[in-house]
């Protein structure tokens, strides 16, 4: 009886709160859908840093909300609809797998602006945005190629989607450019977030003689294992040096804040429209964690030069000649891959062993 009363009271309070917030109009409401927990300290964490940047920028003029650990698929649609119905003006859906759910829900809520991360389907009220992570991977691939002594680099990959394949190809190109003997060992774990499995994958790779680990999954598990086993690794999405003070050489940092602020500002001004954004090192969407003091001076200098060239727009990682894995020509000498080709990239380039799962 007491329990029921408490529950009822809690529920009533919940309604009162939402009711109050709704009655209080004007502040722009921004909603965020996260695929993992904020505490992953990786992908989702950096998106939440972006949300906090929006709050810091606009103060009272904005209200943000988020739902974390939303599975990709039917559940995502339900959460998005619920969020849209609650009067949110702009919704950021921050995982590739939310693509179709976002398009479906957006059709039902034409007055709500949707922003889908890393996808390629747009509508009048659906924008897409992503970062050119492959530029970051080119830089860390170059460092990995220089730092490996066994010439074996391990790569923990999530799902065989273009985003991930692009990263592997870019990292391999860069590693190969500084170390012709380098070999990539790719392990697909088919999850974005499962620390246990990510750690097992890291262990299995180290067992095969890998001494530098790259990852395209979201948790710092591989970094922890790298630290323990005395090999090198790179922070993923955020600075993970806490987990691997000796292991982390640098890391790719996702910087979403400026974009989120710009888009929320557009909603406030009434100028929001559907766009396709793909920013990289140049625009500041891809950043780097501080370089480890384990990097020799020449490696550090080369990495800094590469970053500078990317920032100046002078270097494109996918510049020919590049062959596909089967030896056929992909890019002729001097040819630069266009964004369309990169967005749909679904093959390994020449030199990478193993079959790309489909």
């Amino acid at each position, binding site marked *: 009886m007491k329990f029921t009363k408490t529950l009822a009271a809690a529920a009533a309070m919940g309604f009162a709160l939402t009711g109050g917030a709704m009655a209080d109009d004007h502040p722009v409401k921004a909603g965020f859908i996260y695929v993992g927990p904020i505490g992953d300290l990786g992908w989702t964490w950096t998106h939440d840093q972006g949300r906090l940047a929006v709050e810091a920028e606009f103060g009272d003029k904005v209200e943000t909300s988020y739902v974390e650990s939303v599975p990709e698929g039917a559940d995502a649609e339900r959460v998005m609809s619920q969020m849209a119905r609650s009067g949110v003006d702009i919704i950021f859906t921050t995982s590739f797998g939310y693509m179709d759910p976002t398009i479906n829900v957006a059709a039902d809520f034409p007055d709500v602006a949707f922003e889908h991360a890393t996808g390629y389907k747009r509508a009048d009220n659906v924008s897409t945005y992503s970062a050119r992570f492959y530029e970051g991977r080119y830089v860390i691939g170059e460092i990995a190629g220089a730092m490996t002594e066994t010439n074996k680099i391990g790569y923990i990959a999530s799902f065989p989607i273009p985003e991930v394949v692009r990263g592997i190809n870019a990292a391999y190109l860069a590693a190969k450019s500084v170390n012709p003997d380098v070999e990539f060992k790719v392990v697909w774990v088919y999850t974005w977030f499962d620390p*246990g499995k990510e750690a*097992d994958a890291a262990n299995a790779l180290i067992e095969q003689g890998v001494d530098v680990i790259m990852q395209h999954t979201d948790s710092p598990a591989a970094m922890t294992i790298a630290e323990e086993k005395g090999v090198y690794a790179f922070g993923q999405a955020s600075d993970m040096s806490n987990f691997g003070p000796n292991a982390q050489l640098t890391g790719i940092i996702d910087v979403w804040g400026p974009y989120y602020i710009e888009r929320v500002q557009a909603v406030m001004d009434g100028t929001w429209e559907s766009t396709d954004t793909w920013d990289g090192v140049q625009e500041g969407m891809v950043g780097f964690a501080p370089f480890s003091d384990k990097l020799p001076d020449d490696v550090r200098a080369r990495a800094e030069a590469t970053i500078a060239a990317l920032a100046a727009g002078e270097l494109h990682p996918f510049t020919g000649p590049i062959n596909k894995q089967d030896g056929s020509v992909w890019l002729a000498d001097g040819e630069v891959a266009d964004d369309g080709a990169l967005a749909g990239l679904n093959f390994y380039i020449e030199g990478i062993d193993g079959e790309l799962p489909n």
Partner: protein
Amino acid sequence: MDFSSLNPVAMIVLLIGAATPILLAAIGELVVEKSGVLNLGVEGMMIIGAVTGFIAATTFDSPMMGLLGGAVGGALVSMTFGFLTQYLLSNQVATGLALTLFGLGLAALMGSAYNGIRPPRMPRLEVEGLSDLPIVGKLLFSHDPVIYLSLALVLAVWWFLNRSRAGLVLRACGENHEAAHSLGYNVQLIRFGAIMFGGACAGLGGAYVSLVRVPQWTEGMTAGVGWIALAIVVFASWKPWRVILGAYMFGGITILQLSLQALGISISGAYLSMTPYIVTIVVLVIMSADRKRASLNAPACLGRSFHASH
């Protein structure tokens, strides 16, 4: 294909590490189910164990305190389930699911200050002379203590259920709670004790994840291991020895597919990732096809609330 660089010993060591959290949680749940209670909150108790174990280990700078902390944390949170289902007679399925959601949320809250901290290392039990033996030394004599503990626990549970009077009483509660009650046994209290044991085991399994398998705290880090443990209990048809088989098979397939990929052998990871789940489903289908056999194994009062009406 070149299998020569595949090191089976290293693989088995990894396999045991992946299987142990499942084994611990499953053997605890087996006792709970033998007493007639279905607790679907294993995942929630594990994640609580992972965070309380982590907090205890870092606070006291001792991995052993961490294990203890995990077990205590799991047992404490399981008491809410025990109280609700045994004394307030709430629905076990709904309460168990709620326990998982509650556990995930509470663990995230408790652990927020512990992100990015490294726990004290769990020592390996090295036996002078034996651990240095080729192959056998690595296989048998150089694991961390939890692995030996988990196997000893299975032995103890088997002995308790099949060879002790107390175990017989516990099984009686699971098979026919009215009969047990009419013989003068306090069904609710016995079940409450079993639930706490299950919670402690799940908590220990969780602490193993955050202290040994991935020595770090990350929200949601058990990532579904608790559900697998639940499936393994059914897979094992409530027999302790088969729980070892199930847990090691599951860990084995996980590690095998990762190792083969690391080796550069092209296999479809997607299919291998599915295999443990498919095997579990197949076993469930085979078992349920023969209703008599299934009912021989499953505790007759599983999931039914007991209320003494007199």
